[in-house]
């Protein structure tokens, strides 16, 4: 009998604890108790009502789903509104992506025409063909501007959707411009070519600069193929341009981002062009295609 007493004290403690600390007991008590002999004890009756008060609360909280807390309604309303707003911007994004994919295919056509430059096709001819796509691009960028016209200030919300495509466009435009004039297409000029203006839909300066870096990546290959085709003056011109370009880029204070990475890559283009220039020069190949000095030695 001795061991029962502490057990009972526990039960008692539980009872008091429950009441005083309002710790919720299991609602099952209500179910299990009537079958237990405990039922016969009138002295414990009052406590049941206390229990049942708390237990119903447990039912509502623990079960949860059978009761609709008042806060759900306003909560739902707000989230419904969010959903429709987000769906709207999703639709907008869809429209943007469609236009961007058309920009991309126009760019691809342009690039394909420009690739002939490595096969020493006459430049004016292929430039003409590549240029025919600029009109298409202009039209597409106009569409983008129109789509975004409805949500002012959100250019950068959707920027990521046309970012890399625009960088490719810039790289092709600057390459074409360089082939034509030997100079660098400025940001403003690039904007004009695409019919953009910064007040509504502009060309992001960083996108422009990254595009220029892409264009620099194209130059080593160009030089190599030009020399192979017999244009021995090309390396000098390209080297001059690229050196200046690299110097200009060094003026920028860059962060550790993609532009920085592309700029770091530019020095490899520069080195490659230097190598080609060196190879040509050391062999005494002259711009008019005739090697200087003893041709017999070379042969």
């Amino acid at each position, binding site marked *: 009998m001795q061991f029962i007493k502490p057990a009972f004290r526990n039960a008692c403690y539980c009872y008091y604890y429950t009441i005083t600390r309002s710790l919720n007991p*299991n609602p099952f008590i209500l179910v299990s108790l009537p079958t237990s002999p405990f039922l016969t004890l009138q002295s414990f009756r009052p406590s049941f009502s206390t229990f049942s008060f708390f237990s119903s609360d447990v039912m509502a*909280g623990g079960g949860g789903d059978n009761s609709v807390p008042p806060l759900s309604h306003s909560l739902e309303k707000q989230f419904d509104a969010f959903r429709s707003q987000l769906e709207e911007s999703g639709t907008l994004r869809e429209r943007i992506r469609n236009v961007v994919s058309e920009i991309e295919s126009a760019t691809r056509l342009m690039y394909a025409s420009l690739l002939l430059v490595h096969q020493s096709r006459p430049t004016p001819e292929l430039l003409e063909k590549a240029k025919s796509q600029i009109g298409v691009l202009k039209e597409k960028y106009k569409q983008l501007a129109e789509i975004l016209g409805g949500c002012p200030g959100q250019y950068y919300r959707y920027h990521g959707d046309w970012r890399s495509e625009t960088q490719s466009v810039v790289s092709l435009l600057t390459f074409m411009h360089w082939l034509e004039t030997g100079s660098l297409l400025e940001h403003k000029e690039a904007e004009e070519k695409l019919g953009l203006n910064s007040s509504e839909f502009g060309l992001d300066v960083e996108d422009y600069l990254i595009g220029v870096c892409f264009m620099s990546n194209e130059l080593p290959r160009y030089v190599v193929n030009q020399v192979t085709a017999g244009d021995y003056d090309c390396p000098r011109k390209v080297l001059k341009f690229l050196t200046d370009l690299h110097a*200009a880029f060094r003026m920028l204070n860059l962060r550790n981002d993609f532009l920085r990475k592309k700029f770091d890559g530019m020095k490899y283009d520069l080195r490659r062009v230097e190598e080609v220039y060196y190879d040509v020069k050391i062999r005494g190949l002259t711009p008019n295609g005739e090697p200087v000095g003893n041709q017999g030695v070379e042969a």
Partner: protein
Amino acid sequence: MATESAMKAPFTKYVEYLNDLNEKRERVVKASRDVTMNSKKVIFQVHRMSKYNKEEVLQKAEKDLAAVTNQYMSRLVKELQGTDFWKLRRAYSPGIQEYVEAATFCGFCKNGTLLTLDEINNTLLPLSDPSLQPLQINILDYLLGLADLTGELMRLAIGRISDGELEFAQKICRFARDIYRELTLVVPHMDDSHDMKTKMEIMLQSVMKIENACFSVHVRGSEYIPLLGSDDPGSFLVGVADIEL
């Protein structure tokens, strides 16, 4: 030389543009960090709540939150005009999320309801003078902040349970569930739902932790009872007999 000087002029403009942008971004990042740090303090303040000092603790938390709004959020207003609002979102988003978390956390503890985006944005209106566009938190940052709120709710629920405030804990549980459920419907439509998806997983874990804690108390509440329902009723009756004495 000709090309070099020709290139220098436009590049000077790019330099200026990039410098301005980077400096602005740096300022925004700093402001965002201050917002984060001080919002965290507000959250900690709310956690200091106990059964008896609720009012006073929440009052202090609200005061602290107002200070965050006036001192730190206000710094963002003039930096995020026009297109900069979306351009620099990455720079300020963490701070705003933490702020949303603190504000909604306070709001829930005080009113038991979810502080809506409109309500938060209304408190931000007085920050800017009429010449500026007011800073208005966007849906995405609000939702990302809400997703973090569940973690705090979980801590709060555990705290309340150990304090014996079971009802409150259950209220928290319902609230966290509601938020989780509503968010599941919204997440697929979010711009960059990747971040949010990982948050949703963590969120579910938090909700389950609250549920498990509620469950444990629920079950343990009955743990005292086995004495009552034990298969040795006689011994219990004997015990009860004691009490009648």
